[in-house]
């Protein structure tokens, strides 16, 4: 955990707009001065966004280009050198199967890398102040950071929820803060440098499909290359000569088949027991501490566990990257650096991250409902 200087939120400093002089509204506009800014442009985590917020990755893309390159090169060599020979000597199904697998692998890889893994947006200042207030109920004036843990009972088991000092909230169960991306991610599995993104609740199924289909693809290519070599060697000139013709493919496939197969096997075990890599590595449910702990999230049935991980309805992205920033909202920067929204005459709820503008008139009669709720919400539901 990062040891950051904890900054207590001063509730008095929070905006409660009353009579403020009409000032120019802080326009959250883009560079051209006209287009309103979108939320991804001011996102506090270490992520990169493309296509106007539709695609996101970790800032450190890791070895993602290498992964992509290896897959493309190996498959390319396979289609160029092995397929013609095998189609002639065996069957034309081979490039078809190879093609389907290749497309599958590529699509799932891109989806794993470009999807929001389940990032939790950081708590608004009011929320954070409320949490602090609840904890510090004794009215103790001395400054101290909130306690690090809170206990909840899940399926008759005591689970400790940790307080995240960066996101200023108690992390939900199974959520972990990724230090590389500087975000709390729900059902955090691991940060995968090969795909250049975290693997969490929303993209775990893509990741799992990716590694399973990649194992099929590498095994398939390995098999085809071996068959090709065997046929050539039988054909006359000997094995060594045949080997010289396709060393690259063979090498890549040989080394990757075992590691990818192993990884797929491991993740199949995780899916069947409804565990995350994070929990497995930490040994959260293996009873290392001596107590009898079992995984409280497991449904005790392999089929139901698999379904609950892979077939549960796709949860929405919580960070709403393509939503527009309200015109009077400043950028929400890092968790430590709290910017206070400018009070303005129009906005009543200056909530960082919120988007409700409300004009409520309590004095008017109830017949005046047309005025009373004038909410502007972000354009569309988060993708």
């Amino acid at each position, binding site marked *: 955990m990062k040891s950051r200087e904890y900054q207590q939120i001063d509730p008095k400093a929070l905006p409660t707009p009353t009579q403020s002089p009409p000032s120019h509204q802080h326009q959250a506009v883009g560079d051209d001065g006209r287009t309103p800014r979108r939320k991804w442009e001011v996102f506090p985590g270490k992520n990169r966004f493309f296509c106007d917020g539709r695609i996101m990755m970790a800032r450190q893309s890791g070895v993602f280009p290498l992964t992509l390159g290896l897959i493309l090169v190996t498959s390319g060599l396979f289609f160029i050198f092995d397929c013609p020979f095998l189609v002639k000597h065996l069957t034309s199904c081979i490039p078809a199967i190879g093609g389907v697998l290749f497309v599958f692998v590529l699509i799932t890889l891109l989806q794993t890398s470009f999807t929001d893994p389940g990032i939790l947006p950081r708590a608004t200042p*009011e929320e954070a102040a409320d949490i602090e207030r609840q904890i510090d109920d004794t009215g103790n004036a001395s400054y101290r950071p909130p306690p690090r843990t809170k206990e909840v009972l899940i399926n008759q088991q005591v689970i400790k929820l940790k307080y995240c000092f960066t996101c200023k909230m108690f992390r939900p169960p199974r959520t972990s803060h990724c230090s590389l991306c500087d975000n709390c991610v729900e059902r955090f599995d691991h940060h995968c440098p090969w795909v250049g993104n975290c693997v969490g609740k929303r993209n775990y199924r893509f990741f799992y499909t990716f590694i399973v289909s990649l194992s099929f693809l590498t095994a398939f290519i390995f098999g085809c290359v071996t068959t090709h070599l065997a046929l050539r060697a039988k054909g006359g000139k000997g094995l060594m000569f045949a080997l010289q013709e396709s060393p690259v493919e063979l090498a890549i496939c040989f080394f990757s088949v075992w590691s990818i197969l192993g990884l797929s096997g491991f993740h199949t075990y995780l899916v069947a027991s409804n565990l995350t890599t994070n929990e497995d590595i930490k040994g959260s449910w293996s009873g290392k501490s001596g107590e009898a702990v079992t995984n409280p999230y497991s449904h005790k049935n392999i089929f139901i566990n698999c379904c609950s991980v892979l077939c549960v309805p796709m949860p929405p992205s919580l960070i709403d990257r393509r939503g527009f920033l309200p015109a009077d909202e400043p950028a929400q920067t890092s968790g430590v650096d709290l910017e206070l929204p400018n009070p303005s005459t129009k906005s009543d709820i200056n909530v960082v991250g*919120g*988007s409700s503008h409300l004009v409520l008139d309590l004095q008017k009669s109830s017949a005046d409902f047309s005025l009373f709720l004038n909410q502007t919400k972000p354009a569309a539901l988060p993708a």
Partner: protein
Amino acid sequence: MAETHSLQDLQQPAVSSKVFVQRDYSSGTICKFQTKFPSELESRMDKQQFEETMQSLNNLYAEAEKLGGKSYLEGCLACLTAYTIFLCMETHYEKVLKKIAKYIKDQNEKIYAPRGLLLTDPIERGLRVVEITIFEDRSIGSGR
């Protein structure tokens, strides 16, 4: 004088405070909010109404995350198409989220706004809390 005063009020209804209803994790990681009635709202509305709202919200979220025949089918179909159907189709969860947004708007119009309260859709707070904004009660002769 009173005219001016009310005009000002029209433009600046003051936010008195905010109440945050936290998540209830007793059933695991599913989206569920606590139904305990916050003490700050005691003077504004009755407990039963509030609990009814929260229970309905919880039921709606449970519907969104439900594991059933339909979700298995959707999951399998999605897997077969390498999850590309998510790009073209609205997912079950998104459909229910729209229902929830409508429900909250409804509740605000009928119950909360007349009492000077406003429910914020939890999706705007990352499904962490249900934020209830309490406005200063400006009604004349409210006797509070």
